[in-house]
């Protein structure tokens, strides 16, 4: 059974239909990359899985439990499904350490000492332990995004959603962030990421999905999608990406 099952997901903003029936299975330890033009629904899909956006119809199952419909404990769902945003969204009034330990201590039932120790270990791994007392504004974009990833990982999510997490970064800062994701993938974390970094998607993804106008138009291994795309739209999208020098 797949860890994450999405069935015929529909989502509209007013009269604008963003997702027009998305069906997607993600197995445990799988890394699924969502590619596609801006406005194709990648971000919306991720936000729906985390229940940050209410859906119109369809079902989502996490580990066999249906997490859509009325009465679902969304806070419990979100403790298992982490998300990292394009604009980091760190809490600017809290130190790096407080950003990371807030959720584990407040909703995860971890003691302050244990949460801080684990946060410092995670920061150590990415070489930012000396920034534990800093405030987000004092960090570079790349550092902020890595702290945001640590913040999500501090809740030990079973699946991590990444919403174009390098799109707002200067080119020279992208590498560190991608390296971190690469290590998480090696460790076997289940991930679903929307990205414009095609080279990275090709390298880490076990499955690539091409979204076009609210539907998954084509899916397959990176080799299949990048080297032998079947759909005309996929070919057009990829040739534009190549023209822009991004693949």
């Amino acid at each position, binding site marked *: 059974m797949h860890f994450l099952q999405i069935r015929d997901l529909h989502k509209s903003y007013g009269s604008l239909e963003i997702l027009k029936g998305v069906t997607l299975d993600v197995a445990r330890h799988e890394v699924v990359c969502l590619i596609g033009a801006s406005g194709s629904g990648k971000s919306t899909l991720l936000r729906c899985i985390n229940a940050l956006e209410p859906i119109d119809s369809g079902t989502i199952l996490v580990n066999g439990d249906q997490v859509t419909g009325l009465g679902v404990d969304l806070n*419990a769902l979100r403790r298992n499904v982490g998300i990292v*945003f394009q604009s980091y969204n760190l*809490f*600017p009034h809290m130190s790096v350490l407080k950003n990371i330990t807030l*959720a584990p201590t407040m909703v995860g039932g971890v003691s302050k000492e244990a949460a801080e120790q684990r946060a410092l270990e995670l920061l150590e791994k990415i070489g930012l332990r000396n920034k534990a007392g*800093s405030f987000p504004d004092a960090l570079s974009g790349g550092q902020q995004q890595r702290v945001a990833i640590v913040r*999500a990982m501090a809740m030990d999510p079973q699946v991590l959603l990444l919403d174009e997490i390098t799109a707002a970064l200067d080119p020279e800062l992208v590498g560190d962030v991608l390296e971190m994701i690469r290590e998480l993938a090696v460790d076997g974390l289940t991930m679903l990421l929307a990205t414009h970094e095609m080279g990275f998607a090709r390298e880490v993804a076990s499955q690539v999905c091409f979204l076009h106008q609210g539907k998954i138009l084509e899916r397959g291994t990176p080799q299949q999608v990048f080297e032998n795309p079947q759909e005309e739209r996929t070919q057009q999208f990829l040739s534009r990406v190549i023209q822009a020098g991004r693949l």
Partner: protein
Amino acid sequence: MSTTNPTTAGDSLQKSSLHAPPPTVTPFTIAAVAVVALTAAVSYYALIWLFAYIYPNGASGLFTALFVALWLAALIPLIPAVQAMGRSQKANALLRSHDVVGARHHAALGREAALTSMGYSAAILVLATLVAFVSTKDGAIASTFLRPAFIAQAFSDVLAAFWVNVRVALGAEVLVLVLGLGIAIMRMLPGRAGRPLRVLAILYTDIFRAIPGIIVLYLVGFGLSLAEVPFFKDLPPIWLAIFALTLTYSAYVAEVYRAGLDSIHRSQWAAARSLGLSYPQALRTVIIPQAVRRVIPPLLNDFIGLQKDTALIGVMGVIDAFTQSRLIGSAVFNLSPVTVVAIIFVVVTIPQSRFVDRMLEKDQARQRSGSS
């Protein structure tokens, strides 16, 4: 020399030459000298009246020296005006020898000097006018508002009564902070269930911002005891004053809080909720702390308003500083005691503004520098 003429708009953009000679500085220098001359005349009379008021028994040597020194000080802006004239002549001379760049340089410095002269002169002119106004008619205005003897006589009694204003202000401020936040949160309760409370919060802010504070004070001060409302009828009047001011100012402060809460970007909500925090948890740890930091300056603005409105509590029979000063003032038939209250309010308010400025600077520096 080509100049643009806006009345005959053509088809193409008109450009003026970059090598054009500078406009003449002469009007600036004439204006500067004129302003200095006017300042000299006004400050002359201002000083004459002022000294006549201070030293009614006439001139001594010290008197004359001080008079001349002050008058000359008012003429200091003449120095840049004279410099401007020199620059102006130099610019004209250079222009005659076709040194446009040099002429522009000196013309620019001349304009700057002339404007500096006018700026300082104008400020002195305003001050001199005030002095003349206060000391005219042998200091009639000064002796009505600022007679030292009455000020000294009233000071201690008025200051003692000001303690009432301080207690009312502090009491109301604490309650307003709590009640205002409560109303602001009530106004942003989500969903259909929150709707009735949202409407109630809107009604509250609308109504209490509409009613003049002095009327609320009057109604609460006399109405609650007149109607023998339990609990309230036994409260001392100072508590009724606190209660009335809280009613009024909570409405304003709720709006300030609401603006702050609304100004926190949706992404902060998304980040907090995505970590599994509930709505109240996200509100308490992520949204409210950021919102409160942002609204501290407007909050203080409302607090200063509240502090000043404590001068209205006399209508409900409480003897505050203003009431006390009016009592003394009517006894001596002079307004100097009331001036004392005004001065006390100024002295109390200004440090608060500076304090909040410093606090905000510190907080911003802390978030930027990165040390906790």
